């Protein structure tokens, strides 16, 4: 039988043999993403221009030493600033509108304390040695800062300090319970270890200044305001009214002046609060008399609250009128004030409330209404011809063209520790530019080192560090993709109990654990800074995000990127910019 044979042909299966990578889908694109680190609002608000978003990023990853070094590039005194700075950074924190701002100062202090405890030595960039030598008068925050940054730029520095120990207001003006001496000594020790010489007990007179100008290429005047301004009322004598700053200095020098009975403290700044709280610790009673209201006081709100917890009385809207001696006591006649309208700075404008007065009898009176220079020639000359006036310092040239720089309290509009640090930094940058490129280059060179659009300057940018690549755009709250963040409470600063506080000068704010510091730092949005979270990589529909080991290696493959914009939209912190193609 003839059986038909089946004609078995091999089954044909079309099989692909190449990838789609031949299609350059990048040609579809009309929007172009770009990795671009931006400026965080905190770093612009910081007078020292610290790279806060990066400090928090490193801290959250446990890189405490690197985070600490990142601070030191812009601020030589993190242990001090973590304690006494008024932290304007936290006021502009983008996290504020989400839950609450980041405790930036607490982390700064933690980093400084950790470095001190482990005796860490910072590894910082330093430029080649320069022939010029710099003399610095005053070892307060401005002088210390100037010496630190001048040294970074390669200059040898000598500091002349009138008192027995360096630190200025930090050593003699701020009470121990806010800034313990060992903390300051550690910071100054690190500054000295950079090769800076500090001559203590060396008061410089006006004639000695002229001699110094012959021996140095530049003199930086950072003498500060170390004397309280007088009240200017009748009955005011050196006996009846004591200088608040002088009082704080004597206590920090180890004296225990008698403070029995009630002391009146006139003023509303931090010095007034410090004096009152010191009086309490010495066993006395203290009343702060302020011509405005509590909300108008320049002192930190937290300090005022703690002072009141400790038993300091606060009387508002009272201006000193006259003082009468009554035996060992003084009768203080006070004029009552009232609010009428508003001052330029937004605070209520005060005017006398008719002829109303009140009286108080006290054991002693401290003035803390403001401060001034100890010797009038510290002030920059009123003749500004030929001088360069910058935001935080003033440079005057003598006949030979040798610059004399006035900085710190002498020139700052806002006078505080961090502004003084900013002044020292600005002086170092300006003088270096003057030596290297001449005086005409100063303004533009400094402008190129600004952090965002503010007045703060970055030494890292000045020294051509990676930070110079940052865009000056300041990240706004709406540019943060908050879907990637969870509500989390801000760290609570552990403190001594009131009873523990009033009995001693022990530091009030206690340290937090590394664990808590990491958790707090992790709350940071890292505004504008890539922390390699990989969202752009994960969500790219076109496999066009190429990761590398570091930020610099991360890039977009524009052969295939269709410009959908997901990388920019899903970046939690606005580190990706989307622009129109072809611009």
């Amino acid at each position, binding site marked *: 039988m003839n059986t038909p044979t089946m004609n078995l042909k091999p089954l044909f299966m079309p099989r692909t043999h*190449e*990838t*789609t990578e031949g299609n350059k889908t990048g040609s579809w694109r009309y929007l172009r993403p770009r990795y671009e680190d931006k400026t965080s609002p905190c770093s612009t608000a910081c007078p020292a221009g610290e790279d806060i978003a990066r400090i928090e990023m490193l801290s959250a990853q446990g890189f405490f030493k690197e985070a600490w070094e990142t601070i030191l590039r812009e601020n030589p005194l993190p242990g001090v600033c973590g304690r006494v700075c008024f932290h304007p950074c936290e006021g502009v924190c983008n996290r504020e509108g989400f839950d609450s701002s980041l405790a930036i100062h607490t982390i700064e202090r933690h980093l400084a304390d950790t470095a001190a405890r482990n005796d860490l030595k910072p590894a910082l960039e330093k430029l080649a040695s320069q022939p010029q030598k710099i003399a610095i008068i005053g070892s307060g925050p401005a002088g210390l800062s100037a010496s630190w940054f001048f040294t970074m730029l390669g200059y040898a520095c000598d500091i002349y300090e009138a008192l027995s120990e360096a630190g200025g207001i930090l050593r003699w003006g701020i009470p121990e319970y806010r800034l313990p001496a060992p903390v300051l000594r550690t910071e100054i020790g690190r500054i000295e270890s950079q090769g800076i010489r500090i001559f203590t007990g060396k008061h410089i007179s006006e004639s000695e200044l002229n001699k110094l100008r012959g021996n140095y290429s530049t003199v930086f005047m950072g003498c500060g305001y170390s004397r309280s301004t007088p009240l200017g009322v009748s009955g005011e004598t050196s006996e009846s009214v004591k200088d608040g700053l002088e009082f704080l200095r004597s206590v920090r020098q180890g004296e225990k002046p008698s403070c029995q009975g009630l002391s009146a403290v006139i003023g509303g700044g931090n010095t007034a609060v410090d004096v009152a709280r010191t009086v309490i610790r010495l066993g006395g009673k203290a009343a702060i008399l302020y011509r405005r209201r509590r909300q108008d006081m320049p002192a930190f709100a937290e300090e005022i609250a703690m002072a009141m917890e400790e038993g300091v009385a606060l009387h508002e809207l009272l201006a000193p009128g006259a003082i009468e001696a009554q035996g060992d006591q003084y009768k203080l006649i006070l004029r009552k004030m009232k609010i009428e309208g508003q001052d330029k700075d937004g605070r209520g404008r005060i005017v006398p409330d008719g002829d109303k007065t009140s009286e108080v009898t006290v054991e002693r009176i401290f003035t803390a209404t403001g401060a001034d220079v100890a010797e009038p020639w510290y002030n920059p000359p009123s003749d500004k011809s030929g001088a360069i006036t910058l935001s935080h310092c003033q440079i005057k040239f003598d006949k030979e063209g040798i610059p004399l720089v006035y900085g710190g309290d002498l020139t700052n509009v806002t006078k505080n520790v961090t502004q003084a640090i900013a002044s020292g930094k600005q002086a170092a940058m300006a003088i270096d530019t003057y030596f290297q490129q001449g005086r005409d280059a100063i303004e533009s060179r400094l402008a190129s080192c600004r952090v965002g659009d503010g007045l703060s300057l970055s030494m890292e940018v000045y020294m051509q560090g990676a930070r110079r690549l940052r865009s000056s755009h300041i990240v706004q709250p709406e540019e943060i993709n908050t879907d990637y963040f969870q509500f989390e409470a801000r760290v609570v600063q552990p403190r001594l109990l009131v009873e523990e506080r009033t009995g001693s000068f022990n530091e009030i704010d206690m340290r937090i654990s590394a664990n808590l510091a990491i958790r707090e730092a992790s709350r940071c949005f890292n505004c504008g800074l890539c922390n390699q979270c990989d969202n752009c990589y994960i969500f790219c*529909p076109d*496999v066009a995000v190429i990761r590398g080991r570091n930020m610099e290696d991360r890039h977009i493959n524009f052969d295939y990127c269709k410009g*959908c914009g997901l990388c920019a939209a*899903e970046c939690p912190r606005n580190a990706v910019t989307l622009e129109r193609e072809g611009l």
Partner: protein
Amino acid sequence: MQIDAYDREYMCSGHVGCAGCGATIAMRLFMKAMGEKTIMVLPACCWSVIAGPYPQSAMKIPVIHTAFETGGATASGVRAALDMKGDTETSVVTWAGDGGTFDIGFQSLSGAVERNEDFIYVCYDNEAYMNTGIQRSSSTPYGAWTTTTPGQDWKRLRKKNIVEVLVAHRIPYVATANIAFPEDLIRKAQKAKSIKGSKFLHIFASCPTGWRIPSEMSVKIARMAVQTNIFPLYEVEDGIHYTINHKPKEYLVREYFKLQGRFRHLTDKDLDQIQTMVDEDWGLLLKKAGERS
């Protein structure tokens, strides 16, 4: 989740998916979980195009293009062939759109899972026939505009609850996943891979073109579908054990609707009605999971 899952890549650039396509994100993430020992069955869907025209392929694993209605059957055959070869290691995956799952491929899916074939069926859901021009499917949600439900004739029928249909088959594993929750998606894919028998993954994959949204919004919108309880993340084992994976912040559904062009015509009254429907579904799910809101 395997630590290196994110580092693996089984998809190529140069595919022709639209800019911001959610379905390609779904595939990328899913394949990172599966690894190279995978054979994929692709019934007609957007991905039939995205995977590339002959002789190109956007995938680094074997892919079989097959007819619209045959996702379940083809996978059953591939599984049987592998079993005959003694290869139990390789996973078989059917990767179908909502049309190929909810509508056209439904009988073949139901048949395959009824036999408890050992494979993973993934439905990436973009809520209409997007590839052919945005025609409504039984997955299109209540209220949506499509080219076949245009103007005032927007879809006034509910979206089919496909997960519950599969749960009713009592298969070992059914789960929902979403491109905006990559860790959850990868974990579920790896879990499905480790289970023998039929597994069903329902992946929410936004479609900028069909939903009338900007391309950079596709992940955000997908995330909002979870945050509003429109697309809850949960898994069901053996048809009985419910686990809700994500308790959302419960944003109002109107937040999700107002961002999409396909819902632009809805009035406040319509949105209130949809909110009631979503709340009702969420309440039902909580009950099944034995949880309270």
